[in-house]
């Protein structure tokens, strides 16, 4: 599903954020991406949904290189990858329902589809009762659920989360992890960058470790680190 071959990323300011990283992630996998701050986790994620291009090496998704893509193909790629961030990135002037519907509207779904899919996905993330609430009326955990709902409403094959629990307390973090786990169980390939040692250690999933831009470990049932 995802292949990275000797991928490197040098930012314009000279920082080498990724150095010669090769990784292979199969369909339906659950992968933690760990490493100290500045290790290159976010950069790794940005390469996957082509927010950034690698300075060197290849990124291949579903058998196709995404390095040289026309912009219309980039849009198609992104429809197959959901992304979730630490700071939720919801639109503050729209309700939970409209935030999720937004993703469908810009992909030109019909109102009928929207009225059918959005409530269904809000039910899946446990937010049916809060559909009409604005982001500032929701707790951090609830906001992250809206963001996850928006990321998966289009049934992407891959879901990437960059520190999805970074702003949440431990209990809420576990709820969000559980939700992501449920989504993965239904077949979505899941990649989570995180600092949360406890969660990584408890869930015992594949762990990819980065340090100063280099791949330093890849354990099938790993723990956060020593």
């Amino acid at each position: 599903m995802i292949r990275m071959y000797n991928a490197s990323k040098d930012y314009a300011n000279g920082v080498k954020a990724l150095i010669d990283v090769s990784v292979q992630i199969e369909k339906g996998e659950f992968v933690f991406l760990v490493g100290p701050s500045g290790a290159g986790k976010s950069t790794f994620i940005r390469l996957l949904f082509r927010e950034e291009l690698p300075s060197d090496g290849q990124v291949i998704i579903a058998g196709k290189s995404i390095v040289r893509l026309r912009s219309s193909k980039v849009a198609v790629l992104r429809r197959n990858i959901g992304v979730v961030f630490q700071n939720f990135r919801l639109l503050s002037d729209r309700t939970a329902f409209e935030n999720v519907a937004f993703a469908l509207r810009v992909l030109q779904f019909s109102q009928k589809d929207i009225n059918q899919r959005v409530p269904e996905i809000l039910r899946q993330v446990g937010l049916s009762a809060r559909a009409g609430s604005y982001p500032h009326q929701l707790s951090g955990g609830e906001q992250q659920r809206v963001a996850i709902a928006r990321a998966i409403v289009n049934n992407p094959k891959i879901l990437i989360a960059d520190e999805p629990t970074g702003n949440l307390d431990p209990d809420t973090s576990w709820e969000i992890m559980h939700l992501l786990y449920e989504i993965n169980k239904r077949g979505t390939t899941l990649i989570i960058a995180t600092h949360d040692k406890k969660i990584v250690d408890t869930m015992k999933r594949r762990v990819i470790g980065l340090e100063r831009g280099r791949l330093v470990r890849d354990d099938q049932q790993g723990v956060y680190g020593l």
Partner: protein
Amino acid sequence: MMKLTTIRFLVGQALSSIKRNGMMSLASIGTVAISMFVLGTFLLLALNANLVADAIETNVEIAVLVHPDASKETIDSTYNDISSLNGVMAVTHVGKDEALAGLEKQFGEGHDLLRSLGGVNPLPDSFIVKVENPRLVSKVADVIGGFSSVDKVRYGKGMIEKLFSVLDWVRWLGAGIAVLLSLAAVFLIAITVRITVFARGDEITIMKYVGATNWFIRLPFFLEGLILGTLGSLLAATAIYFSYSKLVSYVILTVNFIPLITDKEFILQLLLYLLVGGAVLGSIGSAVSVRKFLKV
């Protein structure tokens, strides 16, 4: 074919930007309105002036002044010579007494012009010559000017040329002002759309992340400029329509010899062009900002 939901979404995005940008939107609409109003006014002015010029041109007459000391026989034979010329439609003889009477009338009643001139009428006999075709005026006038009995030939050619040169000048002035104002309108719309691009930064990012195509992300911003431009020119077209109707009915009542364009269909078509012009200004303005500030 775009879905109704999508169209409503795109237009809704554009309209909410216009509302959110309140003052800037108003300024943009106002500038477009003023520039299109000026353009429309000058266009109507120029078109009407052409009509007036045509009317004057078809009325051109040649005034032929006979030598002051010409005898009655010479005058009669000149009359016959002119009448038999090709292209001449009518010749009217104006005797020197008649000419003087006409002059006295112009000076007003109670003036004894003849006495103040020392009892001698200095005016010559003259002919007013009408030609079949205004284009023949200068040719016929030249032939008549060659007659030995004829002192001077006058016709309105110079005046028409002067009128046309004034018209040209007015036209250039109007075009210049309209171009400057249009640039200002494009500039203001570009600024307004740029504000929207920045205000909608979060939305643009999310649109990219969920896989919206570039043209789809850009469309609401184009629409915003398009709507601003169209609203502005709609205002201008409405203002021109009503003030021009007023003007026409006033002119017809007071100075009815001035011909004016009253063909409603023609005017509506002109206003439609203005509307299109405003829409184009708006689109150019938003295109400038979208190209420059919306990197997708």
